[in-house]
């Protein structure tokens, strides 16, 4: 393995990992989750209920994603965890450290290309995914219709009947209010021409990456107890109108660090006099473009200066 991949080792055996099964969850729970995942893969975009467990992190911090990762990961896997595209934010660091601790033999990385399993919150990496990779999305709200139809029994019926006029109403409202289609994130998609699906709160910029992606995409919502999936090479279309086609949103700027003009950017406040710069939200991709000085696995954090990230709070 390349130098970018590091051993999991540092913490294992030293902390409370002893007495836990591999990857924290017991084998019965993993089997239950895998069965739900198989069903989810068989019916792309369909939400499958599962018995979500209490996890040692709060709801909204990725309990669904972490359970899916725990169910699919093995000692030979290489795990990457990102939060808003970054490998060095609290959520990403703590989940990566968690698996390093409870999954002996598992290696972690920050490099998209090296990873076999990528758990993500709010982004899809800029580096194109390849066959054999598994994306695990943390999903706060799996139901794309929940803002329009509060009754869960009713939304299930709407999915069963493929009755999605309601979602179109929401898009209509967006255009009527904002003059353009779609939200900047969590823009609903049709999967395989059949199921309406929430892509999780990824920016609409990332929606096109889901379309016919060679990677397996798994979605876990811990609090809502739902799993869903998009198998490799599945049609994923963002909803739109004929006269207002879907347009992925992106700040009109270049990354201040690597100069990229085709990546998703975060706006950073640099001082208290209104100074702002845009930088790539995908830290791995940005670092690689800057010359790869950041290769070499887990960083000690805080090396990227320039103020607080402007991303939203925890999902």
């Amino acid at each position, binding site marked *: 393995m390349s130098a970018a991949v590091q051993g999991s080792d540092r913490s294992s055996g030293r902390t409370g990992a002893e007495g836990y099964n591999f990857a924290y969850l017991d084998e019965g729970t993993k089997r239950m989750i895998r069965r739900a995942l198989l069903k989810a893969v068989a019916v792309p975009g369909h939400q499958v209920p599962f018995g979500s467990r209490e996890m040692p992190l709060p709801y909204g911090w990725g309990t669904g994603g972490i359970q899916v990762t725990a169910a699919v990961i093995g000692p030979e896997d290489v795990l990457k965890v990102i939060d808003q595209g970054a490998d060095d934010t609290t959520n990403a660091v703590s989940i990566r450290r968690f698996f390093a601790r409870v999954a002996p033999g598992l290696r972690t990385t920050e490099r998209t290309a090296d990873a076999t399993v990528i758990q993500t919150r709010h982004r899809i990496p800029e580096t194109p995914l390849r066959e054999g990779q598994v994306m695990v999305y943390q999903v706060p709200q799996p139901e794309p219709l929940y803002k329009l139809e509060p009754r869960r029994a009713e939304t299930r019926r709407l999915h069963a*009947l493929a*009755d999605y*006029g*309601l979602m179109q*109403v929401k898009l*209509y*409202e967006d255009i*009527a*209010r904002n003059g353009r289609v779609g939200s900047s994130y969590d823009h609903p998609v049709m999967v395989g021409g059949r199921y309406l699906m929430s892509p999780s709160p990824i920016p609409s910029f990332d929606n096109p990456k889901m379309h016919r992606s060679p990677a397996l995409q798994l979605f876990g919502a811990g609090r809502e107890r739902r799993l869903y999936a998009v198998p490799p090479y599945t049609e994923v279309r963002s909803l739109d109108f004929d*006269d207002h086609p879907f347009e992925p949103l992106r700040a009109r700027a270049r990354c201040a660090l690597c100069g990229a003009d085709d990546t998703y950017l975060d706006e950073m406040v640099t001082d208290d006099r209104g100074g702002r710069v845009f930088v790539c939200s995908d830290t791995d991709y940005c670092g690689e473009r800057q010359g790869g000085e950041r290769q070499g696995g887990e960083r000690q954090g805080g090396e990227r200066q320039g103020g607080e990230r402007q991303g939203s709070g925890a999902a």
Partner: protein
Amino acid sequence: MNGNDEPILSARGLDLSFGAVRALDGVSVDLWPGEVLAIVGESGSGKSTLLRVLAGEAAPSAGSVTYRDADGAGMDVHGMGEPALRRLARTEWGFVRQEARDGLRMGVSAGGNVGERLMATGARHYGDIRAEAARWLERVEISADRIDDRPGLFSGGMRQRLQIARTLVTRPRLVFMDEPTGGLDVSVQARLLDLIRGLVSDLGIAVALVTHDIAAARLLAHRIVVMRNGRVVEEGLTDRVLDDPRHPYTQLLVSSVLAA
């Protein structure tokens, strides 16, 4: 004749009980194309239940409801299955509720409310949907510049008119109305009734109208069905029933209203 010589909706022998209460007791009614049929009776007489059963929203314990579509093909409303019933409900049928809140999406603008049925039937062109919504708002006497306001900002009468626009935008053949003027003050009621009468006759819609307001029935309906304790006690042309009521209960109903 395009099936005009056959009822658009016909119910036979409907029974439905809620515990010991017989809400429907052997009810049979026919509704003809383009006809407005008023179902009148006091509270608890089973008229709203009848409407729900006719519209397929509640299943009867006995009896059947048959709908004849534009091609004259008969369909068993309670046997066609939910997907077919829903398709019917958002294309050829409409339902106007007493509470505008139940029939509208309060979190969605007036234009979105009117456009919903268009989008549910496959319209995907924003400009066209919006233009059609604006036309319908004008048609129900709501200024088109309120198209982006939410129904919460509208008065009770406006909400009810919005609900009518939202229902009629797909030009249904059959509309169920449950006390469409309930809870509105008298002058607003009168305008709303006028509006409904105009639209219904323009579009040639068949309407099953439930009301306890005899005046509304007289203004809108071609025929009247009088219900009491889950049974139809009298049925006939509006003028005949109201001017020459035969059943003692109808006589009581009519006299108690006209006394005002």
